């Protein structure tokens, strides 16, 4: 186990090194932050040189990257070009709202997907199954921004039950989480149904039934547990994608999270913030994937992670 974790830590470091190098290089191809600061005003060549020097972007790329890595190893992700604030603090500030949105959305999705998916699987090909599958598709059938705007118009503007946007108080959490939850649930319902169907047909399920266990107990105890493998993979995948994927929702709901920070940093070519967000994101993904891999061993004893 220790060797396994050590190997994974080595892999994670390689991933981090590769991704920061790639991001730092890639973002520098897309535009000059010195120019962006002028936003439609009229920079002279001299103005741009002056800002480039102040930001340090006139240095060779490898020097800039080396300085970033050296600072990052000391826990310092640099200073934002745009706000002049330390990047680490900016990320910490945004992690709360994004975690709240991500976990809330995932909770809504899981709470809806497990009962619906299990019901559909056990009533396979019945009308209810068909309706659940078609119904779950609705959340997948519209772009997230459109779903978000529709929910805002109906729930916040027409009915006035909740605030349309913003971050503050539990009420503001509902619309963004439900939007995200609907989108995630559409996939999850189908995945739960599919995995459950797979396991329900397995010999050990017949054994369980043959032992005289009640059908409900068979499904929950044996079926669901074994169906968890692909579901856990999906949830793991989603947590990585989630952090990047909430960008649009955070934009529509004016949510001060990591997604907006990343989008704005990219928009303004705020290199240190872009690099910082990506490092944190990559760390998160690597960690979640490690947990997913470890859980394989727990959920399916036949898989040996170290083999």
């Amino acid at each position, binding site marked *: 186990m220790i060797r396994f974790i050590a*190997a994974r830590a080595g*892999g994670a470091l390689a*991933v981090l090194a*590769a*991704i920061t190098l790639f991001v730092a290089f*890639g973002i520098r*191809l*897309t*535009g000059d932050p010195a120019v962006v600061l002028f936003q439609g005003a009229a920079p002279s060549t001299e103005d741009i040189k002056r800002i480039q020097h102040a930001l340090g972007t006139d240095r060779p790329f490898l020097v800039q990257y080396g300085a970033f890595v050296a600072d990052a190893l000391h826990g310092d992700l640099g200073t934002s070009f745009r706000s002049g604030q330390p990047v680490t603090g900016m990320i910490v500030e945004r992690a709360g709202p994004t975690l709240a949105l991500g976990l809330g959305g995932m909770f809504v999705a899981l709470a809806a997907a497990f009962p619906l998916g299990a019901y559909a699987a*056990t009533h*396979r*090909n*019945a*009308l209810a*199954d*068909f309706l659940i*599958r*078609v119904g779950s*598709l609705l959340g*997948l*059938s*519209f*772009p*997230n*921004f*459109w779903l978000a705007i*529709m929910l805002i*118009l109906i729930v916040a503007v027409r009915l006035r039950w909740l605030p349309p946007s913003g971050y503050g108080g539990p009420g503001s959490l509902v619309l963004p989480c439900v939007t995200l939850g609907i989108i995630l649930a559409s996939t999850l319902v*189908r995945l739960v149904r*599919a995995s459950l*169907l797979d396991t*329900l*047909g397995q*010999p050990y399920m*017949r054994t369980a039934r043959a032992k005289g266990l009640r059908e409900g107990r068979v499904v929950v105890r044996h079926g669901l547990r074994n169906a968890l*493998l*692909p579901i856990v*993979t999906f949830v793991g*995948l989603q947590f*990585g*994608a989630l*952090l*990047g*994927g909430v*960008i*649009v929702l955070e934009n529509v709901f004016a949510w001060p999270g990591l997604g907006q920070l*990343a*989008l704005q940093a*990219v928009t303004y070519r705020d290199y240190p913030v*872009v690099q910082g967000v*990506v490092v944190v*994101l*990559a*760390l*998160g*993904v*690597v960690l979640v*994937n490690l947990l997913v891999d470890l859980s394989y061993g727990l959920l399916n004893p*036949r*898989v040996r992670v170290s083999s």
Partner: protein
Amino acid sequence: MTATQAVSGPLPRIRVLRRRPIGFRLTLIVGLGFVALAALSALAAPLLAPHPPEAADLGARLLPPAWLRPGAAYPLGTDAIGRDLLSRIIYGARISLEVGVLSVAASGIAGTCLGLLAGYYGGWWDELAMRAADLQLSFPFILFAIVVIAVLGPGLSRIVLVLAVTQWASYARLVRSETLAVRETDYIQAARAIGLADRRIIWRHVLPNALGAVSVLATLSVANNILLEAALTFLGLGVDPSIPSWGGMLADSRNYIQTAWWDSTFPGLAIMLTVMGFNLVGDWLRDWLTPDMA
């Protein structure tokens, strides 16, 4: 599945519940119907569309559908530039299907191959493929899209590229987890024991087992990629807005939701039906690929 039969003989069929499978056939009929409708629109757009999709009449902006405004020449109304909505939806099928299908084909094939190798051989292969997957998964999609589009310029092929490159990892991880589960089963062990070549085992026994999950993910992804194209337009990274794509139409109509409902409703409906079609076909495919349960 063939793998099961080859090694351990056909399993006795079991029924989960004794219900008539209404859904099984309904799924295929409805699903194929929607997909066929979209494909037909894409292929025969010039024959079906009543107007050229780019022809604008600024005097006829945002006209409601014909049944609300008798005598009008536009069956589903017009958009904000005064173009026929029906014609644009019919032509839009081309771009949307192209984006959806091409990107899924590219990412699906690449991801499946890597996932099979990683899961079956383990070791270095696994480590390398999974770290590459981590790399891709921790790279924010939007950032990647901006970098690619900024460096290569905007365009449909770039959107397909962005979608393909940012999605292969999902296939790889899924196929790998399926492969890991299958690798340890008795029939694969048996196949190895009798000395079958790895290539043959992967091709004949492991891949078919993973295909069920892949087909589900692929059909979902076709749908999802049609929507991602819309999100890219929403964020200002889309293609030429005069070329109709459903996602682009939906993104551009968001400011008219309250004043001209048809402008966003009909492209939305087109996306919805097509997405549903692909998913229902995927479901059916999945059931068909696992006959021991039917």
